[in-house]
């Protein structure tokens, strides 16, 4: 509508150039256009200037090819709160803190918005980085001094990996699915984990797990009539990717009261409702362990999900990036591949895509961008299309590929580095479990807040029962109530969390997602500040 008005108005300006005085009609249309916020060239003063002033530049901004109202609407539609508004505010505060230290009741910004462990002090696994360093600069392997600086098994592993790379050229594009030898190691790792064989040809290595998700969305979605079932709350990569590819997100609600349980009846209900609206539901996305919710699915539940997908003809997209992050003794990670195979379902029975990443677990190598998807149950003509998509980008980064193979086949008992590796791994995991518990307990002590335990992953997702007064204040500030709370929290404490609305939630409920990643020594201060803030917030807004 705006564009129509603008083009009408432009026509009129052109006409007024030919006529010395604007007529009544054009005045009205032009003021309509000027009222709209993207009609920069049609400000009223120009109307009254002589025609000679209406030269070249009047068509400049509004007819540029790339402007906000002429870019792909899917780009405008998609959202990603994890690095959204709150984070922008936090970054500005952080800049300002450098020069205006005394203006704030805190002296640092603590980013609890994103699962980025090494940015908050978590150390990488030494063995992994030794191998990567040797593969980065292979000349080291020819130097005798190297033996004094690197563990012997890291040197062996580097040789082994380099032998699997044609020409030992770590700077060359590899096979578009990833280096074969590394995929062999990953397949062996999957087999060791699950007890069922894995085929290296089913593995597609990607720059992190996210590009794999995008590839599948691209494949599955042709129009908004194609729907993908996603958990609510969900990690917003899914909603963003579906929006970018022009599809429809079909929500299924996890049950907060039962520890974020996944009910098949809910899946059925949502599926039928979507179908009744003419949507072809193509896939079911399951995040296990969950993000932001942290629940680890019970095996029985997983079997129901596999049966459901098989019965309804859905591709199962299993986001398993947190498979190494399980903090409770009563739950265990089972891959969907293992569950499906142990039910007797083979290649011909179920289409399953399993995603893994090097960004999480105990390795936390977010910045390396490594991951893979294991694609099983697809016919060869479909797999060719997946390969083709992968080939347009040539390949994923080699360093990330190497790391993915190390994650899936780490040091074994007897290896030189095994003891230190295990110590590092268990140190990180037990610390994560401890922090999860400490923060969960602290949150549950807050007035009006309930928080399910983080069984796995890296987040807590407390539910805040916001008082009416707070909700009204949020509305007045034209902000979602949970965003209002989070902004207040940021301004009072420097702690950055993500409002629950960024993940979606049952309407009328409010949450925020906070990571468990700040180092242990920071946790008491975070708990204190959060507790203090919450008390004063409730004092201000209590009904």
């Amino acid at each position, binding site marked *: 509508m705006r564009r129509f008005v603008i083009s009408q108005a432009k026509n009129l300006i052109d006409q007024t150039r030919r006529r010395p005085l604007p007529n009544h009609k054009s005045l009205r249309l032009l003021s309509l256009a000027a009222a709209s916020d993207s009609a920069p060239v049609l400000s009223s003063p120009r109307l009254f200037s002589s025609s000679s002033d209406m030269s070249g530049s009047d068509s400049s*901004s509004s007819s*540029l*090819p*790339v*402007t*906000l109202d002429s*870019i*792909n*609407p899917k*780009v405008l539609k*998609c959202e*990603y709160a994890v*690095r959204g508004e709150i984070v922008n505010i936090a970054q500005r505060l952080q800049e300002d803190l450098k020069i205006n230290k005394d203006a704030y009741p805190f002296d640092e910004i603590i980013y609890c918005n*994103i699962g980025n*462990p090494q*940015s908050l002090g978590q150390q*990488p696994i*030494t063995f992994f*980085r030794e191998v990567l*360093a040797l593969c980065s*600069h292979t*000349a080291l392997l020819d*130097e005798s001094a190297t033996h004094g*600086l690197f563990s012997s098994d890291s040197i062996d592993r580097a040789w082994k990996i380099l032998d699997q790379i*044609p*020409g030992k*050229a*770590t*700077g*060359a*594009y590899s096979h578009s699915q990833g280096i074969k030898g590394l995929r062999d190691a990953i397949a062996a790792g999957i087999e060791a984990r699950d007890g069922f064989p894995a085929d290296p040809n089913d593995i597609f290595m990607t*720059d*992190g797990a996210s590009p794999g998700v995008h590839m599948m969305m*691209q494949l*599955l979605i042709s129009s908004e009539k194609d729907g993908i079932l996603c958990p609510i709350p969900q990690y917003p*990569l899914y909603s963003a990717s579906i929006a*970018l590819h022009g599809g429809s997100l079909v929500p299924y609600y996890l049950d907060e009261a039962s520890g974020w349980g996944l009910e098949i009846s809910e899946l059925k209900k949502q599926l039928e409702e979507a179908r009744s609206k003419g949507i072809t539901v193509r*896939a079911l996305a399951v995040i296990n362990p969950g993000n932001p919710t942290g629940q680890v699915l019970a095996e029985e539940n997983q079997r129901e999900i596999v049966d459901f997908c098989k019965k309804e003809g859905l*591709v199962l997209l299993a986001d398993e990036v947190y498979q190494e992050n399980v903090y409770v003794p009563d739950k265990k990670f089972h891959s969907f591949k293992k569950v499906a195979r142990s039910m007797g379902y083979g290649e011909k029975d179920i*289409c399953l895509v399993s995603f893994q990443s090097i*960004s999480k677990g105990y390795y936390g*190598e*977010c*910045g*390396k*961008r490594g991951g893979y998807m294991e694609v099983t149950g*697809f*016919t060869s*003509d*479909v797999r060719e*299309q997946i390969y*083709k*998509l992968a*080939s*347009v980008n*040539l*390949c994923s*980064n080699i*360093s*990330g590929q190497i790391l993915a193979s190390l994650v899936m086949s780490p040091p074994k008992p007897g290896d030189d580095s095994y003891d230190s590796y295990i110590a590092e791994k268990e140190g990180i995991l037990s610390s994560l479990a401890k922090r999860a518990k400490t923060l969960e307990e602290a949150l549950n002590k807050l007035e009006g807040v309930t928080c399910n335990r983080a069984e796995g992953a890296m987040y807590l997702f407390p539910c805040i029962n916001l008082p009416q007064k707070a909700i009204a204040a949020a509305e007045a500030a034209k902000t979602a109530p949970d965003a209002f709370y989070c902004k207040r929290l940021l301004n009072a404490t420097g702690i950055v969390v993500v409002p629950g609305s960024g993940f979606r939630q049952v309407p009328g409920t409010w949450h925020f997602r906070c990571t468990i990643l700040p180092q242990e020594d920071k946790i008491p201060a975070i708990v204190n500040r959060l507790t203090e803030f919450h008390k004063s917030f409730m004092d201000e807004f209590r009904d």
Partner: protein
Amino acid sequence: MALEYESLNENVKKCQYAVRGELYLRASELQKEGKKIIFTNVGNPHALGQKPLTFPRQVVALCQAPFLLDHPNVGMLFPADAIARAKHYLSLTSGGLGAYSDSRGLPGVRKEVAEFIQRRDGYPSDPELIFLTDGASKGVMQILNCVIRGERDGILVPVPQYPLYSATISLLGGSLVPYYLDESENWGLDVNNLRQSVAQARSQGISVRAMVIINPGNPTGQCLSEANLREILRFCYSEKLVLLGDEVYQQNIYQDERPFISSKKVLMDMGSPFSKEVQLVSFHTVSKGYWGECGQRGGYFEMTNIPPRVVEEIYKVASIALSPNVSAQIFMGLMVSPPKPGDISYDQFARESKGILESLRRRARIMTDGFNSCKNVVCNFTEGAMYSFPQIRLPPGALQAAKQAGKVPDVFYCLKLLEATGISTVPGSGFGQKEGVFHLRTTILPAEEEMPEIMDSFKKFNDEFMTQYENSFGYSRM
């Protein structure tokens, strides 16, 4: 079956990427069977024996394992300037290589890129308008995703072109508007061809939104002259097109008549109104040049005259992918601010770089001359980039044989070449060419000492092929 071929996104099915298509797959099969294959299908220098530059690898190795920096003996394995540089880059990160950076890339590295651009062009560059990406290809896809709304949006793309563009336009559901480069004029760009292409597209209801130039060209290698660039920018100004300047081969120049000049520099030189209004996105990479670090996946794009709110949207989409990989960002920083005279590693760095570039220049010449000595083969000189794109004049007998075999003629030729010699090329049809004119693309990357043998092998195959099919004209069933 939950997922059948029929129900896949049509755009995915339509898209083609010949660089790793049929010829490459066949070559891989033959390799598995034990045949020696010379892969000249993709610009992948290290795969053909080019060594990585030493200094950047030393720096990144130290960044991978920062605990080395504390070791008393680290100086035995690494020169002091590499150690200092590693510390410098690590200080730009918050958590080393293992932490997501800013979604646009580390601010410190983007600043170095901006400084590089400023030194190269003589005009200021804003780091806020520079986004690092996992390879230049990802950047191209991001920008095209912004520009293409639907099938009525057309993108002007040179023919022949690097098929990332055609593949991406297909995937995004847009329209490719071809403009033909003139082989008889060293693959020159005639603005009249552009005008014609745009007029034709518009007459079909297509809204032409952007123009791609690849300079130096891929597969064609031509380097655009300053005059040509000015014409192009003027054209974009008057036709309201955003110019996408793929400049990934800017370090690969093999003649002295037309050195590389960036689109941005020319645009700024032109002054108002062009410099303030023509929208431009320029792309660069660590994969090419004399670095050849393809496997790192490092690149950037710089935006000029893109409205701030659009930049925000592009940032938003970049944030969904969290961040480009940090090691490659460091490679990019090193590429734009390499060792300087006086630095400990400078001599070695200069020697290695010069060695590579001079060899590439020699190989460009060897290959061009080699092709031109073959029967029915005509080859423009590789002025820049990494490829040779000879025209193969296939006799009617060969065209018939191809038809019998159910293959496009240049695919037929390239498959025969592969089976006879192990040389794996990409048929010209993968890049687009004039109707009835056939080419193949090969790289100039095989090791210099192997070049003569490769060219001999090619000549033997080609001349025999030509003789065979020239004599078979008339025998339609052979």
